């Protein structure tokens, strides 16, 4: 698990921004994924019991973030699951992850809004002067 991953959501007029950060690019991507779950429900309520493998590749890291979040949106929609634990590895704009979660339990998870897709709005993947990675974009809910 990307234990160094930190996450937050940020405001957008109509939707929600998701932001992850950490010591590595993979940590930041894992944080952004947790933030996306937080846009739906409290990630602490999602038990990481079932594993799903996710893989994607893109021409650059920003596109890779959009692809990564959209791959999770697809898995959530078709498996009717929510995810709370993300083990991510990234090499040359190619991502492979094992993600853990469980089937949606409306009474327990209290999901507020469905994520329709990750957008290019406020999209950024960068490393700051201190060496910390940041990955963010707005997701449509």
């Amino acid at each position, binding site marked *: 698990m990307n234990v160094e991953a930190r996450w937050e*959501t940020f*405001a*957008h*007029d*109509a*939707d*929600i921004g998701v932001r992850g950060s950490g010591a590595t690019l993979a940590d930041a991507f894992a944080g952004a994924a947790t933030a996306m779950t937080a*846009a*739906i*429900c409290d990630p602490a309520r999602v038990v990481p019991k079932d594993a799903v493998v996710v893989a994607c590749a893109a*021409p650059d890291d920003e*596109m890779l973030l*959009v*692809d990564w979040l*959209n791959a999770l*949106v*697809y898995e959530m*929609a*078709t498996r*009717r699951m929510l995810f709370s634990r993300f083990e991510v590895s990234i090499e040359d704009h190619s991502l492979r992850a094992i993600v853990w979660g469980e*089937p*949606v339990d*409306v*009474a327990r*998870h*209290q*999901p*507020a*809004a*469905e994520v*329709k*897709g*990750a*957008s*290019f*709005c406020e*999209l950024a993947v960068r490393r700051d002067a201190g060496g910390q990675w940041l990955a963010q974009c*707005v997701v*449509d*809910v």
Partner: protein
Amino acid sequence: MDLKNLRQRGEFEWELPRAGAMRVPGVIFASRELIAGMDEKVREQVANVAGLPGIVTASYAMPDAHWGYGFPIGGVAAFDADDGGVVSAGGVGFDISCGVRTLHTGLKLADIETQKARLADRLFARIPAGIGSTGGVHLGSAEMVAMLRGGARWAVAEGYGSEADLTRIEEFGCVAGADPGAVSDQAKKRQRDEMGTLGSGNHYLEVQVVSELFDEAAARAYGLAIGDVVVSLHCGSRGLGHQIGTDFLREMVLAAPAAGIALPDRELACAPLKSALGVRYLGAMRAAINCALANRQILTHLARQAFAEVFPGVHLPLLYDVSHNTCKEETHTVDGRKRRLFVHRKGATRAFGPGHVELPHEYAHAGQPVLIGGSMGTASYVLAGAAGTEERAFGSACHGAGRAMSRHEAARRWHGRAVVDDLAVRGILIRSSSSRGVAEEAPLAYKDVTAVVDASDRAGLAGKVVRLSPVICVKG
């Protein structure tokens, strides 16, 4: 938004003059107060859209415009294929053909007062809503193709509703030119179990009462009178539309440089209408419109079943069905010449005026019903497409209130249970499985829809006909 960048054309019409890469000016229809409350991002996005190839006349923003992706939400822009025009996946958005449908019930408020709680429970039991919900209709691959081609026509043929419903839907329930082959397998898989589901977030089914009347003649044409109970539902093309938006946004971003298109914002992702990618997107996007129309048709059937359980023998004919996030090929007169244009409406409603050939004959004199959703505690409106609106903004009007604060802020300020209790005191029953969802959708999290419809009315886009007040609201 700073008014000093705008030139006032009329009390409710403001021009953003052409500058830099803009090919046409921007035009914002709104009151001074609404404009002042808009984010500067709206101006930036209106200007960016004005720079897209083949745009015709102007880049428009409706009174409810707010910061979107690429296009502002509330943005309208038309493109000419013969002039190098483009179609933009970002200009349509993820929730393709999200829209509002309103049904008559033939009942008055007094008829339902004693049965309100039971009706709310039956609607909540019948309508699949919220994350993880599945519909009772599960489509195999041949049925999926038929649905994507046929839209609400397919649903009626499958036994959901009647032929009479189709005349009260834009394009009479089925948009031509849908290409199921252009829809990815992932998009189809997302939709397999989602037919006849409401979704979540700002999607809803409401029982409403006509609480104020502004235009007696148009109300009569629409069959509306004070005290009438109607049902409105707001939802779209579900997972299929979301995935098509995702697929083509990516593809258009990557293809833009080769097509010679410099995107000031990747979210404006677009392709020439005459390119293979543009044609493929149009085919897929039209399939998603049909999916949304079929979805609302199935939900209509479920609402009718719920009503029949409580009020045996009741009929729920359509008032009308409008779509918000679309690109439609339409004929418009520009500088005295008829042209086929591809009109993008992103969070905007088609609002054809009186006499338009695409209106059902019974609405020909009044103009197209324009159904405006509000929040669950305030009001919705029925407007009528105004005469001359095709010249003003290619026959378009506003679509709703727009959020006044973020979901995060709303959930921090209110608790879902308290919102439900407060509304119950006011006679509004809420049914939702998500307390946080209700808090995020709290009435005060939305802007005042009345100011938006007043501006639409005064700007000559669509005139106010009636106000609808909520009685029951089923949320996802």
